[in-house]
């Protein structure tokens, strides 16, 4: 079987960690199928990036590194990916589910006459068949399936495999020519907007995910709102525990409805329902009921604990390892003091 491991570079010309994770999977699949492996790389510095994985056992390295693909733009990325898929003659394409590839690879699949599946959490070959797994219905149902269509593109979820480790070398990459027309250049990427360093609350590499629910903004036992205090407590914990911040949908929705809430939180922090499904080792939920729409985003959180006033909340119904029945304001104050 001809396998293509398809990557893109980052702004500094290096390969993202997610690419190395996918390379692990591609190398394994090559062995399982007794197939061949090609590596394709899109972006600025693609030739140098190929050299960093030269020892992976690929028979060929292909690049598209023209100026047009120096920015993550759908039209040019799609054309470049299509060109690499066709040039490699691949039957199976493995790629990381980064934002850039999530955007363009479905379009490339259409142009290359391929079929595509995303959020792949497992891929293996068995008796000539390639079997994959992904979650459906927001991480509630696990599906195992294969496809007969070829080429078949698989976008792997980030954090599923260990990153490939091996020797650098001279990959002798071949540049694949792609012609882009004016219509491909109608969009220009003007930049990346990041929150200020001290306001960055989303940390995929943190060990702990702290999830705040709408209960922080409700009237407390003294009949008063303590939203400012809630903000201080949460931010203090994030800083001391170096934790990442998540939110329930209801909490971030309050903000867009014009109600006073936690100003450092946005829809980007949302976990579950229409939010993210992070993969932190530990998750601490506070003031959140743990109903199914909340919990669906916790599928990949290994150790789960919750603080809630209600001993019968959703977390207590088998969704968390430990539920602490108590006042989150009081408990978090004491936690922060101990972490100081």
């Amino acid at each position, binding site marked *: 079987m001809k396998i293509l491991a398809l990557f893109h570079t980052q702004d500094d010309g290096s390969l993202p960690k997610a690419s190395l994770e996918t390379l692990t999977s591609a190398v394994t699949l090559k062995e399982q199928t007794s197939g061949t492996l090609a590596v394709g790389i899109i972006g600025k510095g693609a030739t140098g990036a190929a050299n960093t994985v030269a020892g992976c056992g690929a028979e060929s390295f292909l690049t598209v590194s023209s100026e047009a693909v120096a920015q993550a733009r759908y039209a040019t990325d799609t054309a470049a990916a299509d060109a690499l898929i066709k040039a490699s003659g691949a039957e199976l394409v493995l790629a990381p589910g980064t934002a850039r590839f999530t955007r363009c690879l479905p379009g490339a699949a259409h*142009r290359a006459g391929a079929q595509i599946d995303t959020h792949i959490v497992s891929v293996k070959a068995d008796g000539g068949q390639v079997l994959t797994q992904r979650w459906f219905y927001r991480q509630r149902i696990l599906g195992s399936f294969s496809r007969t269509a070829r080429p078949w593109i698989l976008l792997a979820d980030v954090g599923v495999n260990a990153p490939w480790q091996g020797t650098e070398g001279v990959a002798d990459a071949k540049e694949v020519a792609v012609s882009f027309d004016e219509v491909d250049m109608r969009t220009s990427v003007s930049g990346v907007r990041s929150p200020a360093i001290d306001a960055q609350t989303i940390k995929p590499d943190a060990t702990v995910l702290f999830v705040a629910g709408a209960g922080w903004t409700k009237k407390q036992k003294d009949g008063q709102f303590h939203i400012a205090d809630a903000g201080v407590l949460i931010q203090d914990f994030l800083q001391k525990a170096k934790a990442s911040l998540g939110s329930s949908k209801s909490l971030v929705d309050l903000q867009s409805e014009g109600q006073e809430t936690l100003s450092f939180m946005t829809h980007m922090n949302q976990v579950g329902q229409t939010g993210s499904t992070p993969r932190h080792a530990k998750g601490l939920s506070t003031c959140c009921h743990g109903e199914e729409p909340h919990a669906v985003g916790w599928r990949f959180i290994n150790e789960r604990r919750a*603080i809630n006033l209600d001993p019968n909340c959703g977390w207590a119904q088998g969704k968390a390892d430990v*539920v602490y029945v108590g006042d989150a304001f009081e408990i978090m104050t004491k936690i922060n003091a101990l972490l100081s």
Partner: protein
Amino acid sequence: MTDGFQIVVCGSLVPDPLQTLEPLTTPQGPGLKNEMMLPSVLDPWSAHALFEAANLTKQIAGSKVYLVSLGPKAKLQQLMMTVAQKVPFELVAVDGNASGFTDAHEAAAVLAEAVATIPELDKNRLLVFGGCASASRDAGVTMQLICERLDIRDFFTGVDEIKVQPDGSFEVLERIESGQYQASVCKGAPAVLAWATGNLPEPPNNPQVGMVNMRAVMPALMKAKPAKVGTGSIAYEKTEVPAQKRATRIVKDVSADEIAAEIVEWVKQ
């Protein structure tokens, strides 16, 4: 901009998030137990796309919103009872399978055809909106496939904001890794935008909007074309709800000091 946008929102129904979902095998492939009886909502990301589309029509004179929705006709009718009260739109209904286990390629083909056959569609004014994924299939590929089938070259995903300039060009913010946004500028329509949650709240129900919408919704449902959407080239081996129920330890009648100490020890491990 002189003539406004034609904004076509693609959005289907998904099970209400509070429902318990149990997979089963049908002659057509995997499905959900009692699927036709499960209460449905408009897919949440598509719903955000719809609200953003309506917001854009308020800003750009001459703009109009269409909602292209794929699903069993009877369930679409139920769905429209609530959705129709939110914002003004013209419904284009497609009678077919909206299961999360169907093939995105087949769904996209059907949706693209429904978009392309909207009367008096002007590609120079066309924006196609949808969700960046769905609460059913959650693949995040359907809108790109529609984009290709409509021969549109500008696509954005994980969109939270669009700002249109007087000359018709627009800036888009797309979610990327680590809580950041990629900002891009596009010269103008046509374009396809797959939305994340955007920045707008869900509009309250408006009975007047509902009445106006429903006058056209019922005829649209009556003339909904049947479409075959199946599992395509997918061969399912199994679908399962993994047993992930944890033996939850409930800690109560314990001081806040003791709880805090236990949590800190756990965090530091």
